[in-house]
C-alpha cells in the first residue's frame, strides 16, 4: 500500500514537473552554440570524429583566447543518433538561446528549414543539407559552405573525365547511394549531366538495413560492369561498400566517394586492399598547422579532449574537417561582432556574419589553417561559397591529395539551384524571400 502510494506520488510529481518544464533563463555572458551531434547509432562511426573536431576547436578558442572577441563560446551537444525525430526535439530544446543550429542530417535539415524562417536562427550545414540552400535569396537562414553536394557531383565527374567532359560519352557510371534524402540529393544533377554529356547513369540504392550487407548491390555492379562507381555513403555504409568492393575485386582506382565517404576509420577495415580509393574533399588534414598545434597544447594536453588516441586520431580527415566546420562558424560570429559592434551577438547578427564570410588566404593563414580548406566567400545570394575541393586518395594508411583544387561547373549547377529553390518556395508558399539582395 505504502509502496503504491509512493509510486503514485512520484508519478504525479514527474507529470507535473514535465508539464511545467521550460528551458532555464540564460545569462548573456556567453554565446550558445549547440550542435545536434550523433555519437550514437549506426552512423556514429562518421559522427564521432567530426564532433570531436568541432568540440576541440571551440575548446581551444575558449582556453587560448577566452572565446571569440572576449566572449566565451558555450558549446553544447544534443544527441540525435541521426534520428530526425530526436533532431527536431533538440532543435526545439536549443532554439531559445542558440545563435545557430547545426542539424547534421539531411533529414533534420529539411525538417527545421522552414522553422528557421519563423524562429530566425541560421542553419549551418557545412558540406551537407539541401543543395538548393545555396540560393540565399530564398533560403535566407540556411548556409552550406564551403561546397554543396551538386558541386561535389560536378567535380567528381570533371575529375573522371580528366578535364574533358566530352570523354564521358558512352561511359557507364554507377551511383551507389544511401536510400535516404541524403543519398538522393545529387541525383538531379547527375541526371542532367548524363543527358548533357551522353553517359549512362545507374543509381544503385542501399537500404538502411543493407548498409552492412551490400552483396546484392555489388553483384549488380559486377553484372553491369560500370566504368566508375561513385558512392554517397554515410556511417556504416562506407565500410560495408569498401569491403565488398575489395571482395568483388572492383578496381579501387575507379571508385570515388563523396566527402562523407572518406573517413580514415572506414578504410582501416581493408587497409592495404583499399589502396587507390578516392574521396573528394573540401578539407584536408594539415597536422603541422598552427591551429592543430594550439589544439594539442590547449585541449589535448590539458586532457579536455574526447579523442581516444590523440596521436593517431587527430591526424584523420574527419577530425580535421570538424575543426574546419567550427572555424567557419566562429568566423561568422567574428564577422558579426565586428559589423554590429556587439560582443554577445544574437542569431540574426550571426546570420549576417555567415552571409558575409570571407575566408581568403590571409584569413586562413591568420587562423593557422592554411590548406585545411580552400578559400571561399559567401554573399547574400550565394550561401555556399562554392570553394572547390581536392581529390584525396587512400594510400593504404592515410588519405593523400592527388589533385589540384578542382572547381565545379557552376553553369550547370546554377540553373538547377534556381529552379529547385523556386519549386521549394512555391510548394511552401507563402515563403519569405529576400528581395533586398541584388545579386
Amino acid at each position, binding site marked *: 500500500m505504502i509502496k503504491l502510494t509512493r509510486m503514485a506520488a512520484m508519478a504525479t510529481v514527474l507529470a507535473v514537473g514535465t508539464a511545467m518544464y521550460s528551458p532555464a533563463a540564460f545569462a548573456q555572458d556567453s554565446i550558445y552554440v549547440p550542435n545536434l551531434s550523433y*555519437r*550514437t*547509432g*549506426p552512423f*556514429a*562511426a562518421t*559522427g*564521432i570524429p567530426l564532433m570531436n573536431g568541432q568540440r576541440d576547436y571551440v575548446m581551444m578558442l575558449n582556453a587560448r583566447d577566452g572565446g571569440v572577441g572576449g566572449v566565451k563560446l558555450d558549446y553544447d551537444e544534443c544527441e540525435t543518433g541521426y534520428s530526425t525525430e530526436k533532431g527536431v526535439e533538440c532543435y526545439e530544446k536549443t532554439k531559445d538561446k542558440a545563435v545557430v543550429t547545426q542539424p547534421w542530417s539531411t533529414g533534420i535539415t529539411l525538417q527545421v528549414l522552414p522553422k528557421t524562417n519563423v524562429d530566425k536562427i541560421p542553419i549551418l550545414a557545412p558540406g551537407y543539407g539541401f543543395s538548393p540552400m545555396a540560393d540565399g535569396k530564398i533560403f535566407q537562414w540556411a548556409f552550406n559552405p564551403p561546397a554543396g553536394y551538386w558541386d561535389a557531383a560536378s567535380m567528381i565527374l570533371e575529375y573522371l573525365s580528366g578535364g574533358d567532359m566530352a570523354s564521358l560519352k558512352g561511359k557507364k557510371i554507377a551511383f551507389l547511394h544511401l*536510400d535516404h534524402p541524403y543519398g538522393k540529393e545529387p541525383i538531379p544533377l547527375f541526371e542532367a549531366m548524363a543527358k548533357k554529356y551522353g553517359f549512362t547513369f545507374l543509381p*544503385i*540504392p*542501399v*537500404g*538502411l*538495413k*543493407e*548498409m*552492412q*550487407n551490400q*552483396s*546484392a*548491390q555489388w*553483384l*549488380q555492379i*559486377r*553484372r553491369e560492369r560500370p566504368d566508375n562507381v561513385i558512392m554517397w555513403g554515410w*556511417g*556504416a555504409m562506407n*565500410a*560495408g561498400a569498401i*569491403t565488398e568492393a575489395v*571482395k*568483388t*575485386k572492383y578496381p579501387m582506382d575507379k571508385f570515388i566517394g563523396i566527402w562523407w565517404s572518406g573517413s580514415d*576509420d*572506414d578504410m*582501416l*577495415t581493408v587497409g592495404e586492399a583499399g589502396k587507390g580509393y578516392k574521396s573528394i574533399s573540401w578539407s584536408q588534414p594539415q597536422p603541422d598547422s598552427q591551429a592543430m598545434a594550439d589544439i594539442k597544447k590547449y585541449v589535448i594536453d590539458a586532457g579536455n579532449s574526447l579523442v*581516444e588516441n590523440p596521436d593517431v586520431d587527430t591526424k584523420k580527415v574527419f577530425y580535421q574537417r570538424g575543426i574546419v566546420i567550427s572555424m567557419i562558424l566562429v568566423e561568422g560570429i567574428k564577422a558579426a561582432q565586428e559589423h554590429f559592434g556587439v560582443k554577445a551577438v544574437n542569431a540574426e547578427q550571426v546570420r549576417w556574419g555567415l552571409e558575409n564570410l570571407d575566408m581568403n588566404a590571409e584569413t586562413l593563414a591568420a587562423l593557422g589553417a592554411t590548406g585545411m580548406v580552400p578559400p571561399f566567400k559567401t554573399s547574400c545570394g550565394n550561401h555556399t561559397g562554392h570553394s572547390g575541393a581536392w581529390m584525396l586518395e587512400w594510400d593504404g594508411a592515410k588519405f593523400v591529395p592527388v589533385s589540384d583544387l578542382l572547381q565545379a561547373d557552376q553553369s550547370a549547377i546554377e540553373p538547377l539551384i534556381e529552379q529547385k529553390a523556386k519549386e521549394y518556395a512555391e510548394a511552401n508558399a507563402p515563403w519569405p524571400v529576400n528581395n533586398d539582395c541584388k545579386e
Partner: protein
Amino acid sequence: MLNQIFVKPFVDMVSAPDFLLQVVWEGLVSGVLYALIALGFVLIYKSSRIFNFAQGIMVVFAALTLVGLHENGVPALLALPLTLVVMYLLAMAIERVVLRPLVNQPDIILFMATIGITLFLVGFGELIFGGENKVMITEQLGIPTGSYTFEPWGGLLILEQKDITAVIGAIVLVLALLLFLNRSKMGRAIRALGDDHQAALSVGISLSTIWVLVWFIAGIIALATGIVWGARAGVSFALEVIAYKALPVLMLGGLESVSGAIIGGLMIGILEKLFEIYWGQPLMGGNTETWFAFVLALFVLLFRPQGLFGERIIERV
C-alpha cells in the same frame, strides 16, 4: 512486361552461369548467417516459449566484447574464452533479473521484456565500447582472409576464404549442437522442457539451470554469428538489424524446429538474393531484400500455418 518477368531472368541465368553461381554462393553465405541467428531464437523458444528478440543485440554485444577485450591488450585466443564467460554471466543475469520474476506471464509480456533487454544492452554496449565501427580481429583468430578464384565456363567465381570458413564453422557448430541436444543429458532436459513444462519440472529438471544454459548456448551462437558477420563488414550497432532477417526464417521453418531454422535460413538466403538480382533490381528499383523474405514466408504460411517444419498445432476448446 510478361517477358521481363517470366522469360528474361531465366535467360540471364543460363547465359551467365558463373554469375548465377556467384549469386547462389552469396545467398548461401547470407543464408548460413540467417540460419545461425534463427537457431538462437529457436533454442530459446523451444525451451521457454520466449520469443527472444534480444538475439540480434546479443550478436553485437558478443562481437563487441571480443573486439573490445582484444583492443585492451588481451590476446585473441584468450579473448575468445573470456567473451564466453561474459556471455555466460549475461545469461545468468537475464535469467535472474528478468526471466525468473516473469515466469508464467503471457507470451507477449516476455516478448516485450526481451525488447527491454535489447534496449538496455544497446545503451550499455555503447556506453562501454563506444559507437564507432570496429574491425573484427579476423586474422588474430586465425581466420584466413584471402579468396579463391575459379573460372567456370570462362567466367569468374570468387569464393572468399572467410566465407568458406564461416560455412564450415556453422556446420560444425550446428552438428555439435544437434549432438548435444540429442545425446547429452542436459540436451534431453532442454527438449523435455520444450515438450511439456510441468512434466519436465515434476521429473526434477531445474528450470533455472536449463534457462541459463539455453541463453548461454544462444550466446555462443551469437558470438559465432558476430565473428562471421563482423569479419564481412565490421562490428557496429548497425549489425543489430540482421536480427530482423531471421524472423521470416522462423516463420518459414517453424518456431520450434532446429532443422527448419537451418533449411529455412538457407532457402531464404538464396531465394532473396536470386529475386533481388534477377527481378528486384531490373524491375522494381532494387532493395527488395528488406521485404522479400517476409512476403515469401507469408505466402507459405497461408498454406501451411505451422511453417514448413513446425509441429502441427491442435487446438481444443
